[in-house]
């Protein structure tokens, strides 16, 4: 399936996994992997031959993605992959489990379908920002090969440049300098009920909303778009829990924060941290405005350099711990697996991850319809959503492992009730 490279690139290139990536191989199972999808919808049909050439052209620029994962005795590490990645026709069930020896040992997959080109990325490689930069550069190169002049700016990297040290660095190590201690105190929270789909399948529902209208709405409430969306999600989940007439638990939303914007890093690897906003329905029924306030204050209280540094340092503390370092890899994996079963999704009801405005050149924007960003389907989280914006199209994409679509329905109809136009696309039959 994959050809061997013969381009005389340097051998012996290897990278340590960054701090965030260290947990993902331990969470990997035969039914689930932590991978996400970024997808570009162009205004014309994709030519697979040109796309394949574009992918080959950009790979040397992304040496931190042109790798395979290897087991060491103490840690996993990334090593130069001697194969060439291939593009594939798209599938209905993206982001299914990753096996390290499949797909020419690459940890990402490039798909095409009609006007769409998508990349499924295993979280070990990078976060949403890195995935978007990779795909933007790929699409820009594709358009260049089609004869369209695209300058290299924003998310589009110049193929003439080489990977700088700053792009390959583990930015967590550099920025974990806090002396404060971080207490982890997360409870088990509410999870929406539903009929689970078979393993490796997922229901995807995208809603496209005009960004300017939503921005106006959130500005009128004095909150950001992410805070607004998180409040809508909290509202939907609180109402759902109330309707289920069960013991009321806390409802918590996980919101990953791009630390590049806080620390000004240029890294192409993972550099995000997850914040949580939560409300306790036992305190009483929250109105939407109250939820907005809760989200706004809770998020802004955590989202500052000092708090974030404390969290990063706590995560780095585990990695730096001499006992943890001395444990063999299989014991570490076992520990990660057990910890994952009792923390992670158990302490969050859902996830909203906002990639923000995709910063691509004006010349490229003319050829792009929208960008879709889909997070990894959850294990117990009913519906997790990813948000991305380009050309005034804000695309909210739900990855749901349950057959029911009530969370998505309540979420999108909330915007219809607010007077916004919502267009729905889905892989449901």
């Amino acid at each position, binding site marked *: 399936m994959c050809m061997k490279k013969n381009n005389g690139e340097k051998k012996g290139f290897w990278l340590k996994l960054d701090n965030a990536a260290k947990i993902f191989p331990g969470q990997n199972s035969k039914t689930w992997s932590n991978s996400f999808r970024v997808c570009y919808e162009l205004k014309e049909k994709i030519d697979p031959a040109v796309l394949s050439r574009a992918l080959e052209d950009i790979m040397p620029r992304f040496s931190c993605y042109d790798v395979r994962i290897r087991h060491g005795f103490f840690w996993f590490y990334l090593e130069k992959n001697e194969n060439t990645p291939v593009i594939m026709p798209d*599938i*209905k069930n993206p982001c299914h489990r990753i*096996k390290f020896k499949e797909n020419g040992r690459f940890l990402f997959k490039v798909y095409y379908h*009609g006007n769409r080109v998508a990349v499924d990325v295993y979280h070990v490689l990078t976060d949403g920002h890195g995935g978007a930069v990779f795909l933007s550069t790929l699409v820009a190169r594709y358009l260049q090969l089609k004869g369209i002049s695209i300058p290299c700016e924003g998310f589009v990297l110049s193929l003439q440049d080489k990977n700088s040290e700053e792009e390959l660095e583990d930015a967590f190590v550099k920025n974990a300098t806090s002396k404060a201690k971080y207490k982890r105190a997360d409870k088990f929270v509410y999870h929406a009920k539903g009929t689970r789909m078979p393993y490796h399948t997922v229901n995807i529902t*995208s809603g496209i909303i005009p960004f300017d209208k939503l921005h106006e709405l959130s500005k009128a409430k004095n909150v950001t778009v992410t805070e607004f969306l998180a409040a809508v999600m909290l509202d939907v989940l609180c109402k759902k829990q109330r309707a289920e007439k069960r013991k009321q638990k806390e409802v918590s939303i996980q919101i990953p924060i791009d630390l590049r914007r806080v620390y000004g890093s240029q890294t192409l690897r993972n550099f995000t941290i997850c914040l949580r906003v939560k409300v306790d329905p036992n305190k009483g029924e929250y109105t939407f405005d109250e939820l907005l306030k809760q989200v706004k204050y809770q998020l802004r209280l955590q989202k500052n350099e000092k708090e974030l540094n404390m969290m990063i340092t706590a995560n780095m503390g585990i990695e730096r711990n001499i006992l943890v370092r001395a444990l063999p890899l299989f014991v570490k994996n076992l520990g990660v697996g057990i910890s994952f*079963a009792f923390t992670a999704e158990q302490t969050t009801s859902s996830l909203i991850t906002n990639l923000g405005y995709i910063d691509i050149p004006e010349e490229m924007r003319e050829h792009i319809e929208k960008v879709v960003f889909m997070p990894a389907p959850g294990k117990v989280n009913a519906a997790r959503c990813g948000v991305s914006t380009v050309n005034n199209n804000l695309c909210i994409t739900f990855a749901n492992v349950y057959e029911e679509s009530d969370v998505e329905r309540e979420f999108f109809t909330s915007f*219809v009730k607010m007077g916004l136009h919502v*267009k729905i*696309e*889905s892989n449901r039959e």
Partner: protein
Amino acid sequence: MSYCVNCGVELDASAKKCALCSTPVINPNVHTAVTEEKPFSEELQMPEGIKKRFIAFLLTSAMLVASIVMFFLNVFFIRGNFWSVYVLCAVILVWVLFVFPLFGKKINPFLLWAFDTLAVSGFFGMLFGMLKPNLSVLKCVLAVIVLVSLSVLILMIWLKQKKRHWTSITVILLLESAITSVLSGIAVTFFVDNYNFFVVGIVIGICAFVMMLFFIYCNRSKHIRAWLNKAFYI
């Protein structure tokens, strides 16, 4: 361009029903079916399973090499009583119990049960042949093997009848464990004439019985069952 009359959202041109509420799309102005390309692919790709046969082959090779090395060590270097026979029999037992099932895609469970029972009996037979303990111990072990294999057989027949929920399976498993441990305690006491084995059997039986009561409660309560499913990703 069509809108869902129920949700008020615009639907994709290829949609036959609303993705949010399943309301069908009916357009009286369009008489011929319009075939628009769907935004998502319809090809479902299920990932391959783990190659069990390859793992089985590797394990078999490793076991074979280990057995041969032990045999030569016993014959040429660490001489004495035939200790390598114990190793060889233990390897055969482990192979039959854990490696053999990996070779077939779907081996008949009753065949596996028969092989497992034979392998365990054979292993203890070898032990008795080599060590030559008194006859009552042999009777004890035989009684326990017969009881355990019978209880496994009953469980298999019960499971074969129809698909059961995991809580029901746990209840039956615990009930069988309770009965088997009590009966084993009685059998061992009868042959060895040591009352302590009977007490141990009774204690294990009571523990299994108490756990069984908990799972019977789980089986009846929808809420607890749902909670357990979510808490342990079942």
